[in-house]
């Protein structure tokens, strides 16, 4: 590559990577998708730790039946902020980070379609993060209406101030929506327009299919949530009456706005993790992804169905019987494409040559936890049963098996799997396995007891409870503390490995995929020469070459020259 053409381009026309090639670039307005990816992941993980700390205080309160550790208002603020932070500050940014880092590498692109938009979307995250955390310090404390912010409770505003926890919360959620839409536009465009030559839809890795499916949901769903949030903010601040029944509004209307997005949002979260499973299992089982095309297309089917199931959150709300029955059937239909994926992963693993690295262990753990969550999910779809357990700890147990069991475990699987690629270092397997064991035991001890509690009739969001629920709550609290401890070996592993771990080769797992053809960590703009794709992904056991050219060849020759 010569420098001559670069001099002809006017400055600032092409985005520049910005800061120098050291740790400082992670604190700059870099437009490199890999820097932004790691920025997202690290910032989100810090918020994950903070949200987890709030959960541990909550479990401290719930280790005894009475409301004694924290005041009821504090407890209500804690569970509201725990849910909000875990969704808007942890899962969405974390998954955007994975998509940012991996998608351009996997489809053979040099960067995202809109690198500056990408950086702007990321830098909104600390902005609304600060607004959200700042709401702890305004008079009256943060929002205490739960992450659903159902009116009329969310409109009560006991302080009477214009700036209060609830209005800051709504502002942060609206900004988060804007950031997510910016990210979604970018990712969808990138996948549509920037695939390498020869990469038809059915030669694209399954992770990119799931990211595409998830980001399409963001595009059609977020406008409904944002509209609902703006109307609620108007009700709260200027006295409109969209949802306030005493002024003629309808609180159930808000629930429709909210769940029209917030149920599909669950698929925004879980779909990329399905993608991680589809990438990780073939590598460590040394087999192609079983039924790749069906697995790929079922992501899009989930996207389609996700838009017509939201009322299952409202089976016990002010909804008529026909609506409950209709949405019961549509919800159950989602188990078909999901079931196909689960069976395909099991068939991928079956008969392979398994290597239980930490990444594979977390993948397998995440799959088992998702299976359990899926089964309780079908039970919850059944309206007459849901009416009993709706808004009880059974639901809390179910969605923590999805979010902590499948999504967090899937996140760890992804981090361990791609850590050598991201950093050029190998992590310590021993610490990784300790991390896996603590996480697996901690999360089951924490969330399994929630199911009997819910069946027995303990409502969610309670700061105190009847003494007969004490036994399972003590177990759950111990599990929560263990889950908190389990992050320590992970943090230790990541930091020490990144600083002084053994250097990783370009492809330490002998994985097939474009990201494994480039150096670890990949150079700026990834590919010296854009690869030309010949075959479908996951060609384990067959000798077909993935690309017609070696995208690292010219770089290697250039390096040897200099």
């Amino acid at each position: 590559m010569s420098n001559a053409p670069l001099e002809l381009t006017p400055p600032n026309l092409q985005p520049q990577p910005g800061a120098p090639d050291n740790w400082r670039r992670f604190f700059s307005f870099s437009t490199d998708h890999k820097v932004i990816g790691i920025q997202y992941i690290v910032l989100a993980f810090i918020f994950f730790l903070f949200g987890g700390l709030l959960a541990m205080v909550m479990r401290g309160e719930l280790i005894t039946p009475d409301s004694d550790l924290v005041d009821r208002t504090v407890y209500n603020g804690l569970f509201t902020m725990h849910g909000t932070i875990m969704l808007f500050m942890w899962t969405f940014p974390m998954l955007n980070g994975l998509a940012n880092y991996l998608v351009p590498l996997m489809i053979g692109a040099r960067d995202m379609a809109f690198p500056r938009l990408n950086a702007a979307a990321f830098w909104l995250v600390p902005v609304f993060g600060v607004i959200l955390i700042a709401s702890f310090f305004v008079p009256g404390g943060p929002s205490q209406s739960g992450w659903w912010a159902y009116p009329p409770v969310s409109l009560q505003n006991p302080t009477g101030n214009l700036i209060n926890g609830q209005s800051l919360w709504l502002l942060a959620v609206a900004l988060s929506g804007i950031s997510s839409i910016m990210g979604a536009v970018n990712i969808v465009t990138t996948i549509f327009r920037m695939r390498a030559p020869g990469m038809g839809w059915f030669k694209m890795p399954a992770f990119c299919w799931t990211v595409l499916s998830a980001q399409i949901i963001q595009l059609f769903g977020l406008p409904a949530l944002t509209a609902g949030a703006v109307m609620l903010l108007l009700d709260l601040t200027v006295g409109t009456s969209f949802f306030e029944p005493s002024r003629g509004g309808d609180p159930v209307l808000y629930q429709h706005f909210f769940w029209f997005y917030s149920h599909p949002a669950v698929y925004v979260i879980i779909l990329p993790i399905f993608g991680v499973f589809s990438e990780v299992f073939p590598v460590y089982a040394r087999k192609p992804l079983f039924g790749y095309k069906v697995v790929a297309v079922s992501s899009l089917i989930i996207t389609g169905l996700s838009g017509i199931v939201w009322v299952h959150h409202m089976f016990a709300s002010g909804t008529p019987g026909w609506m409950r029955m209709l949405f019961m059937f549509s919800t159950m239909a989602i188990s078909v494409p999901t079931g196909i994926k689960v069976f395909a992963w099991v068939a991928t693993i079956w008969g392979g040559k398994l290597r239980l690295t930490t990444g594979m262990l977390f993948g397998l753990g995440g799959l088992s936890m998702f299976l359990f969550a899926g089964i309780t999910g079908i039970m919850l779809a059944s309206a007459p049963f849901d009416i009993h357990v709706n808004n009880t700890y059974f639901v809390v147990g179910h969605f923590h098996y999805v979010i902590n069991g499948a999504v967090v475990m899937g996140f760890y699987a992804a981090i361990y799997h791609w850590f050598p690629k991201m950093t050029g270092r190998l992590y310590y397997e021993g610490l990784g396995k300790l991390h896996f064991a603590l996480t697996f035991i901690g999360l089951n001890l924490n969330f399994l007891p929630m199911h009997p509690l819910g069946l027995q009739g303990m409502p969610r969001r309670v700061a105190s409870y009847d003494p007969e629920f004490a036994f399972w709550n003590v177990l759950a609290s111990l599990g929560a503390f263990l889950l908190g401890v389990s992050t320590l070996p992970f943090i230790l592993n990541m930091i020490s490995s990144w600083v002084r771990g053994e250097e990783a080769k370009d492809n330490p797992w002998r994985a097939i995929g474009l990201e494994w053809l480039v150096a670890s960590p990949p150079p700026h703009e990834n590919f010296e020469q854009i690869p030309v794709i010949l075959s479908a992904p996951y060609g384990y056991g067959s000798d077909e070459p993935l690309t017609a050219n070696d995208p690292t060849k010219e770089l290697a020759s250039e390096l040897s020259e200099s």
Partner: protein
Amino acid sequence: MNRRTILGLAGLAILDLLISLWVGQQAYSWMPPQASAESVLVDNLFSFMTTLGSFIFLGVIGTLLYAVLFQRAAKYDASDGPPIEGNLKLEVVWTAIPIVLVIWIGTVSYQTYDRMSILGPMESMAMGMPTAEAATVDSPEAEPAPINVYARQWAWEFHYPEQDIRSTELHLPVDQRARLLLSSEDVLHGFFVPAFRVKQDVVPGREIGFEFTPIREGRYRLRDSEYSGTYFAANQTNVVVESTEAYQQWLATAAAISPTPAQNVAYEEFNQEAQSTLDLGWKTVKPAPAPIVNYASSENDSHE
């Protein structure tokens, strides 16, 4: 596949089925007492779903565990597994299985919901005043008027319109259809009696007709199930299911008592000193004063 493999797989499937049937029977014991006709229906449905769910869970986890234990690569074996990319027959089968299961579970659920019919007869039109008017016009003379359930921040109050009795404890005669009219004065609440397996949000601005049939005498917990603000967790009381005679007796006794303020956890806690380790003095909505009722229940009353 040879005969031995098929027999082996069939044996495992039967074992899985037997364990699942046993787990399905255990499911009944995970539930609170069966105190309403609806609870029997819901528990049967839950047991059915638990059986199916266990079968699938054990089948999949068993397969995964076998692979993890017995299909590991040897330490220096760098070769790949068999390059199987798919199997059309298998994929059709495992698409069909969830479809069949879902239709099966959906149908059983639909029948269960239909037999419960917990929403009042007017609920398809269901909005505030028109419903109340229609109810007075349409209901047959013999049926007693529904008991009014008032939810507020943070108390439950029950009004028996025919006797004009107010109570903070819900008394119901056993083996008779209980008819309630749910309304809220402030925010969303949820009427939830775990022993009855029924739940309905109480929506301000609406009156929602709700019904079920208690079948077992006893004292059960009634909890607020839709988050309603600061003292949400304390917003609970008891439901007393008793024989028709005892119920009539209670109505007569209660009617003779002159109204007094009932014990109310939220109101008392609000007015006393903070007791928690961490109280940041965040402002809260002021609880409504304790309801003034003929029959006042106590937080110390027992329940099952």
